[in-house]
């Protein structure tokens, strides 16, 4: 079986979020936190921020432009008015960042650079042992019991770390890398269509929780594609569970979108199965089809001596021995 470990490692590198963006995410978070702490009202509400989302779980993929800052108000609970809480946060951010701050349905997006890097600030209040964020629909913010939606992003981060302990590939937790590969495959083939990356991440979590075996990323990824394809085929009768909350994932995606995604992963699983049986160059050709590309190029790099059609070609090597000292031709 040709598992192309070097190419999988490089593929993971090629979908990794740029290291400087991680640093920018941390810096942006600290900047926003410092700003929020300047407000007497927010301090009175017990403001405390934490980085959440795929950045926190390390399941984000390139370009990784969206950073979520979970803004917890430790002294507020769901008796508080979402409109008032959101209004305070939004007012502070928009007055400071002006046109760089753009209010969303229940968060405020702050643009940090022209390359698309931005931070989403989401306010949250206590809800028993968990947290609650304003409902997406603002019309329910006044009085309705549905004005807050329970969430627990920090718990999901803990579960992700737990899931990444085994199985392992060469001493490295396999779960998080496979989530990234799954998110990349979805992103390439489905683009902005729903369900998005988090849903696929949860489906992958579900697949790993039910047991996933393999000694290589190639085997684990192929098995996950197959498992997720099967799981998506049953979500209409057996909803996908948000493991942090232990309840069905909300909002429930459109069944047609889920069916289309299930078909996609089923096809990709077949391609992956063929790749496992193919020779080196042909396997790379098939994995390239599964993972597609991003703005850095094809995600799955070709092994040395292979071309883009899956054929063997002579590799070009550096001429280090002679260096720049070889006699120059003249013509």
């Amino acid at each position, binding site marked *: 079986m040709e598992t192309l470990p070097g190419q999988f490692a490089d593929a993971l*590198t090629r979908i*990794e979020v740029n290291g400087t963006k991680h640093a920018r995410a941390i810096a942006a978070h600290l900047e926003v936190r410092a700003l929020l702490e300047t407000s007497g009202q927010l301090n009175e509400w017990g403001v405390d921020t934490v980085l959440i989302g795929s950045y926190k779980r390390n399941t984000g993929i390139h370009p990784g432009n969206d950073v979520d800052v979970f803004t917890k108000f430790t002294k507020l609970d769901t008796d508080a008015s979402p409109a008032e809480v959101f209004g305070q946060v939004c007012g502070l951010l928009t007055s400071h960042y002006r046109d760089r701050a753009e209010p969303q349905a229940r968060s405020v997006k702050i643009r940090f650079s022209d390359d698309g890097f931005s931070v989403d600030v989401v306010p949250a209040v206590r809800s028993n042992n968990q947290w609650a964020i304003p409902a997406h629909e603002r019309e329910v913010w006044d009085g309705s019991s549905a004005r807050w939606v329970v969430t627990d992003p920090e718990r999901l981060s803990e579960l992700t770390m737990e899931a990444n302990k085994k199985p392992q590939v060469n001493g490295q937790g396999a779960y998080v890398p496979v989530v990234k590969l799954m998110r990349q495959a979805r992103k390439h083939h489905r683009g902005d269509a729903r369900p998005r990356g988090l849903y696929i991440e949860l489906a992958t979590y579900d697949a790993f929780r039910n047991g996933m075996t393999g000694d290589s990323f190639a085997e684990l990824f192929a098995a996950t594609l197959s498992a997720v394809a099967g799981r998506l085929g049953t979500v209409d009768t057996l909803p996908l569970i948000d493991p942090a909350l232990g309840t069905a994932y909300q909002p429930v995606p459109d069944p047609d979108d889920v069916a289309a995604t299930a078909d996609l992963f089923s096809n990709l699983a077949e391609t992956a199965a063929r790749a496992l049986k193919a020779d080196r160059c042909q396997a790379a050709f098939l994995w390239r089809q599964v993972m597609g590309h991003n703005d850095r*190029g094809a995600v799955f790099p*070709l092994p*040395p001596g*292979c071309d883009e059609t899956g054929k063997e070609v002579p590799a070009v*090597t*550096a001429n280090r021995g002679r260096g*720049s000292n070889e006699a120059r031709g003249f013509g």
Partner: protein
Amino acid sequence: MAELVTLDQAALERFATELIVAGFEPVADSDRRCWQGPISSAFTGLTSATTMRLLLRDGWPFRHPHLQVSGLNVEHVNDEGLVCLWQEDDNSRTWMYLDGVMSRIESWCERARVGFRQADHALDAYIGFTTTVAILAEFDLDVLKPTGMRDGQSGRLHGIQRHPSLIELRPGTGPAGSYRGQWLHAGEFAPPPRNLDELRSLLTSAQNGGLNKSISRVASGGEAEVALIIGRRHDRRDTLVLRLCPDEAGRVRVESLEPAPTDCATLALRAGPDAAELGTKRVLCFGLGAIGSHVALLLSESGVGQLHLVDGELLRPGNVVRHAAGRDADGLPKVCAVETAIRAHAPWTSIAVTNKVVWDTPTFTELMKGEDLVIDTTGASPIVEILSRIAEQTGVSLISASLYRGGAVGRVRRQLPGSDTSIYLRGEDERYTVIPSGSDHDGDLEAKLLEPGCSSPINNAPPSAVAALSALAAQVAIDALTGRMRYSDEVIDAYEPLDEPPFDRFGRVERN
């Protein structure tokens, strides 16, 4: 911009992965040809830039990438910050790996600090003002200012557009339709100016005044003007030619033209290492046909100071297929056709011509008087016999070159007074290999080929054989003129194997 297409996509993707690991990302809309990342620490102190760009070019990995760094004010960087790390023909391909690029950057930065080497000037083929146009600007500084130029001086010149990609700069004011212009001698050029501000800092106030007037004329609706800036760089003369053009917005666009000096010293840089010594030599050439024209041209290009060309024939259209002259010389005496070609290639060679067929001994003797070398390329054995005997009598060196057997074999014979056996004596000398006449097709073929209306038989020797023998004859001649004598007195090459040994294999035929 189209995506890079390479003969080794796997290598390109591996290199891209290395770039990503190092924090580089493709620049938007560059189709992954341009990657931006953190600047190498080697640039510390040379620029305050925090990023650098690698530009992958067509031909990768056989062609090196360019590096772009802003804020560098050192040599070998153009106005756009393009740094050329390798010579264009470098074959190391060390740029296939990021460590190769980084290592080269470190070497480059070190040289930028301590001073570039003379050899590093080869890195600069594209350096200059940002806007470079593919137009040559020809000039001869000695013609522009025959009494020599000094720092701070300036003068008028004009530019004649010879064709779309050539402007000839000449002294003084030009005719209507020519470019108005000026030359400015600026002094030290290290680093060379890359924009008008840097140029102005090198000029005197008077020179700046002249340049500003030129710019003002163009800006106020005048015609484009040219400026030739002369300076010194590492004790060598350096030049910059600018064309000041009005643009649609009423501003002045500064274009850098490619300086193309035409003085003999510059042209002689390509004449080979013996040019200076050959400049004192006189050579008499008998026969200016296919081989003779090329030999004469090669000798002049190599630096020979004086050539006397002797031939009595006119150049026919059919001759030019293998001749150094082209169809524009049809009907000229061959000596004149070759003289024209030599003047166009090697202006340092003075030429005398004798346009007649010579058979009489006194004329031969008179022509050979004072010559350092006589070269026979007539292909006529009677002439060789005569020349050999007179050369022996007069103590003049002789070289005779000819093709045989339809160009299958070439022979260069040398007769140096006092050392080499005289050519006319070699027929009976067993040390010298006889080239057999052949019996059937090649000899007959030569005899049968006749041009309509012409009585001379045509030898159908291929142009490649003519070129090969011409080069060999010129090399043997230069070997003799410089006194090195590394060739033997008779050199035979087989360009096409014959049936008879020792001509039955390619290459040099050893003497008996």
